[in-house]
């Protein structure tokens, strides 16, 4: 069984998807967001023979042993990071175990890994919570140092395969082209934009050490305007 570097397991998480869930955070990320709240999870660990600090290389069996303590109090598990889709085989193994026990198994991802390449993983995954950090590639690059081609591809692929659980946008005036994102999603998915939750997240600089560490949160009015716009477009909106 393939191991993955596990940064943290939160046994009862109220903020990582529907219902009560056990959240598993994997180490390592393929992009570097200026607003990352847990930059300590970004560094990619390659040598599975060594454990470093709090990060433990674990098999899916070992992780699931931890999860089992939380059954029947949880509805499911959420794999997060870092970027958990860097470890597709580990996810597939873990989700296979989870599905057998009736748990919903969600992926929380930045969307930069092309998920259509992992049909076995998608088969055992109940859904994906996808970040759309920016629509314009230049904005995306400035924000994350990465490329958003796969994000857009995943958006359509996940919607087509009925696996799109939630879309998240962290809202920062100027930095993030929220209105363009909303329009882009609507152009891509059309009527299907009411089939997932759109979560508009107010940026907060707590824990941020990157470029945006001193940027202030947008106003409630700004957030409400975005919400109203999204609702008018037909999205199912949650704010947090």
């Amino acid at each position, binding site marked *: 069984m393939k191991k993955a570097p596990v940064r943290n397991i939160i046994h*009862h998480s*109220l903020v990582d998807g529907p219902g009560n869930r056990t959240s598993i955070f994997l180490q390592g990320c393929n992009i570097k967001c200026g607003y990352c709240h847990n930059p300590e999870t970004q560094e990619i660990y390659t040598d599975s023979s060594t454990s470093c600090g709090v990060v433990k290389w674990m098999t899916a069996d070992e992780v699931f042993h931890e999860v089992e303590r939380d059954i029947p*109090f949880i509805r499911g598990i959420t794999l997060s990071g870092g970027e958990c889709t860097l470890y597709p085989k580990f996810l597939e193994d873990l989700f296979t175990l989870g599905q057998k026990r009736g748990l919903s198994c969600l992926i929380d991802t930045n969307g930069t890994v092309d998920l259509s390449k992992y049909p076995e993983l998608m088969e055992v995954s109940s859904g994906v919570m996808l970040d759309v950090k920016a629509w314009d590639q230049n904005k995306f690059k400035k924000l994350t140092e990465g490329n958003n081609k796969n994000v857009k591809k995943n958006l359509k692929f996940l919607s087509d395969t009925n696996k799109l659980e939630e879309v998240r946008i962290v809202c920062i005036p100027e930095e993030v082209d929220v209105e363009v994102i909303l329009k882009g999603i609507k152009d891509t998915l059309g009527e299907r934009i009411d089939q997932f939750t759109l979560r508009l997240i107010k940026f907060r600089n707590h824990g941020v050490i990157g470029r945006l560490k001193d940027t202030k949160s947008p106003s409630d009015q700004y957030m409400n305007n975005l919400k109203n716009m999204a609702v008018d477009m037909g999205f199912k909106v949650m704010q947090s």
Partner: protein
Amino acid sequence: MTNILEIVKSQKLTYEQKVFSLAHAAEDTLEVIDIPAKTKYYLEENAIDDLFEGSAPYRPRYILPDYDKFIKNGSEFLQLDPPEDLDELLNSLMILYRHVPSITSFPVYLGNLDKMIDPFLEGYEDKEIKKKLRLFLNYLDRTITDSFCHANLGPEDTRAGRLILEVEKELQNAVPNFTFKYDAEITSDEIAELALYTSLYCANPAICNHSLVKDTYSTDYGIASCYNILPIGGGAYTLARVVLPKAAKLAKDQDDFFENILPQCLNTMGDLMNKRIQFLVEESGFFESSFLVKEGLIDKNNFIGMFGIVGLADSANILLGEKGKRYGHDKEADDLADKIMHTISEFVTSFPAKYSPISNGHFLLHAQVGMDYDEDITAGVRIPVGDEPENMSDHLRHSARFHKLIPTGCSDIFAMESTARNNPSAMLDMVKGAFDLGVKYTSFYEENGDLIRITGYLVKRSEMEKYKRDEAVLQNTTHLGTGNYDNNNLKDRKVRGV
């Protein structure tokens, strides 16, 4: 007499609190119950405790009138016809509540309010109903000045239930305590989530595992006072408690505890409870004179004696002595606690209780919550505050194990982070899992709220602050809560949620 003069002159007691204290002092001048030397010894050591119930019982401790019957028939004694609309219903209830006695002199059970009210809602807008409910609930909060008072909701999803929850969230009242009876087969997720969501704003309602406790008695049950599960149309004659850590301290070792001290405590307390019941039933005249009996709202045959225990955790820890094993964390401590519980349960289910046909002639076990004067005594079978397991799953599993043998009420209290308000479905998932495993009753409050659940009852932090400044406060449970909050370090209760 000094004590009585002190009551008279007190500036920390309201007039009403003085009257009750004086009545209690008068009762305690009587010696109508024969207390043998051995019983006296254990009472003095506080290994058994009559909870200051008074030395000449003249009313049952907890009364749960059959309110449905009252609504159907009205009351001849109170000169009330059956209510025909919502105003009449609420007014009639306000009148009846005033005449339901208890150990606190206030009604400890107000009925399954949603089901009582729901049939009277037709033709009213939500707004009108909420105004009437606001007035009704505020009347209760301001006149029932003791939070050992309970109203029930559920398990059905009713319009009245939803409106009561909405109004409760606004009002932030300490009285009454509310419990929602939850049954996955009957209760909708929507109202269960609304109930849990509401509890994160006003610490009400608590949640009871309806499917697990509904067959406790041959009659329907209600939740009264703190979280006591008792027969409707009856209640509890009396409640005494074995203070397990005090008993453990009297024992030389575990063998002495199991062979001598514990059996003596159980026997002396059982005997004391029977004598109290006997006086109440045979001599006090209560059941002959009360209109509640005459009009069939209560019946002697529906009363039980509640056999309380407190401090299971501390007793197990004490008996393990130097080993440093802890209840809630180590198998050895939990197994020992389990043995204590089984020993007590075997005693209670075989010792004959007087005048208790509804409980088959026996007392019923109750996880008593503690008193304001308790120190290092953990409520019922709970894990001590501040020593809760890191993972809430472990905590809930432990609760399920130790709730099992207690039919008349045991509970847990969880302080939650405010983020939980955004995800009541997560709270419901926890409740569902816990109830599946056998947890009987649980409650939540938000860590920073003004209303806080002390042991089972609610008190406002702001009122405790006033009382600490030696000011008179409306509810006498604030007096109890202040002592308990400090003595039991309730500020250290583990906060759950991420």
